[in-house]
């Protein structure tokens, strides 16, 4: 596990000059993950979304790696094709048999939890040697903050509005990480941009395994979360400390709670309101008429952690 000092010797594979918002969590995730990929070449893919569009506005690209964007729902299938080409060209003798290349596909929660789920499931099941990274900011941010199945319960979004008859999103966030873990692939983990050591360690493991690996990374969206630009890391950290976003990994089927969450549990889980109150998308929850919903959200968080702890044998 490299230290920050050691990581500075590696090439930053995402250049500046991209058009993501100030304080965007997606590029923070990408930088940490690609730094963790090590010295070997990486081929990158990305689903349509903020990250893709903001980093590849013609004629500029922020990717120092070979990069492919195809469409919204097929980042996994597309990169699986690139990986297949690598194998096919090796078999044809056009690429040396001992050549090593890493393959990584990125997608937001909309492109992963929702429209890209089938493509992701297929790629994971087929066993391609690739990493899939979901940068989860909890809504379709690129099209203007519409709810996805990754949007938390109670969150305001432009298709789960707040009014007299509805208090934001009605449904719970889908537990995508567990769904992918159920594929029985070598490595699955949930992490947050706020805990760089945990995230880079997990990314390093994901790149190291032979076969598919999946990372679900909480990535703040100041625009969609209605949080201050400078608080992107702070709010993500609170997501972990309140148990809203537990960090864990599933390594060859063995579940374990990761250090950031172990430490949060040891110190005493903070109330989820500390995470929620930093964000404008949850402000309606603090009105008296939504007290019950707020309590329900705390219960959901507690229940999810009980489930995750159970899977982790704790």
């Amino acid at each position: 596990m490299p230290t920050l000092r050691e990581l500075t010797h590696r090439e930053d594979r995402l250049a500046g000059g991209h058009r993501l918002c100030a304080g965007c969590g997606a590029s923070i995730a990408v930088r940490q993950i690609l730094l963790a990929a090590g010295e070997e070449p990486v081929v990158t893919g990305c689903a349509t979304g903020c990250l893709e569009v903001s980093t590849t506005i013609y004629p500029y690209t922020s990717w120092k790696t070979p990069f492919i964007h195809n469409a919204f729902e097929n980042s996994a299938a597309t990169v699986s094709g690139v990986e297949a080409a690598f194998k096919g060209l090796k078999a044809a003798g056009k690429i040396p048999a001992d050549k090593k290349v890493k393959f990584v596909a990125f997608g937001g929660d909309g492109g992963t939890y929702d429209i890209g789920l089938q493509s992701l499931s297929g790629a994971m099941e087929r066993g391609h040697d690739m990493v899939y990274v979901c940068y989860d900011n909890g809504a379709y941010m690129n099209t203007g903050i519409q709810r996805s199945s990754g949007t938390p319960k109670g969150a305001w979004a432009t298709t789960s509005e707040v009014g007299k008859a509805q208090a934001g999103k009605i449904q719970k966030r889908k537990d995508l990480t567990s769904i992918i873990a159920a594929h029985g692939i070598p490595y699955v983990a949930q992490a947050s941009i706020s805990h760089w050591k945990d995230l880079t360690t997990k990314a390093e493991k994901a790149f190291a395994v032979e076969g598919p690996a999946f990372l679900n990374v909480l990535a703040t969206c100041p625009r969609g979360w209605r949080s201050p630009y400078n608080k992107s890391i702070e709010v993500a950290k609170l997501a972990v400390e309140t148990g809203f976003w537990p960090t864990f990994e599933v390594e060859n089927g063995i579940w374990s709670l990761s250090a950031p969450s172990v430490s949060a549990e040891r110190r005493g889980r903070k109330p989820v309101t500390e995470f929620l109150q930093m964000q404008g998308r949850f402000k309606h929850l603090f009105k008296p008429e939504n007290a019950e919903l707020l309590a329900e959200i705390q219960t959901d968080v507690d229940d999810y952690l009980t489930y995750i702890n159970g899977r982790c044998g704790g």
Partner: protein
Amino acid sequence: MTEKRTVAATGNVVVAEAFRQCAPDVVAAYPITPQTTIVEEFAKFVAQGRVHTEYVTVESEHSAMSACVGASAAGARVMTATASQGLALMWEELHIASGMRLPIVMANANRALSAPINIHCDHGDAMGARDAGWVMLFAESAQEAYDNTIISLKVAEDPQVLLPVLTCLDGFITTHSIERVDLLDDETVESFVGEYEPQNALLDLDNPVTHGAFAGLGGPFFEFKRAQRDAMDRSKAVIERESAAFSKITERPFGLIETFMMDDADVAIVIIGSASGNARHVARELRSEGVKAGVVKVRCFRPFPGAEIVSALRGVKAVAVLDRAESFGAQGGPLFLETRSAMYDAAERVPLVSYIYGLGGSDVRLELVREVYTDLSDIVAGGSVPDSLVYLGSR
């Protein structure tokens, strides 16, 4: 020395054989009737170790074409096959493959689109993709399906083209009927298709490139589309050149269109695919009855051989264009629309009638074809031209 093997085989079996001989680096495909036996045959080659291909058994046609796009952008030679609903599910990817200028070859077993669900032949699937930027070839027979597949790869990968090619064969009629087919030996095919030299390959790791960039916000999207149009236009000469080279090896003719008894024809049918033989059969019968009937078979639909069709129809007094596909609300079927548009450039104004036939595998009986020629002869004799399209043989 070229060795030829004569086999009795279905269209799908010989398409799979052509795939094997073209030695793709990646095949990503999904089963769908009546294409399935292509990917099944190919799976045998994989299991037998007869191909080096990385065979990606995806979970849908959308992912099939998505993986093909990734593999082709990576620098691999890529082939796949689909049909009907599968082609429809690929819809957005078809445009992306051509927009990214990826020379993917895909066989399409022509089958009707739902609803109602129907597994039999018509061209509604392929015609639905006619504006997707793919070169489109249609086979009449298993032999043509084999030949078209090999030529398609050569055309797709030509540096002047670099476009995907859809190579169509009629569902069940051609995909599943056993026909006599002459196959080339592996070395001849290998040497004909040559080595693929990819441009801007993702796996050229020393020269990183970005594929699939955003060209909006005043970006040069319009210029990229124009470049695609220019490549499609150039593909015509490349098809002609490569098909001539291929004909030299096989001693089989290959044209963008193929004419039958057109030199002095008064009445003519323009048609695509397996029913062309029915048209020729009836035309031959009519000739013995003194009717100067002819047939124009269209083998290449994109780029559309408009000038060739106009030239073939010179002197004809009435023309029927037979479409095995609907274009609801339009003034005729897709082939009719193209043909009539091309005929605007003809020196003389010729009556053209749009016939829709054989949808969902409905039979194209010889008497129906004869009915068409009779209608044309009536028009030539002074009868009126139908003011709307004709559903041939429909109740």
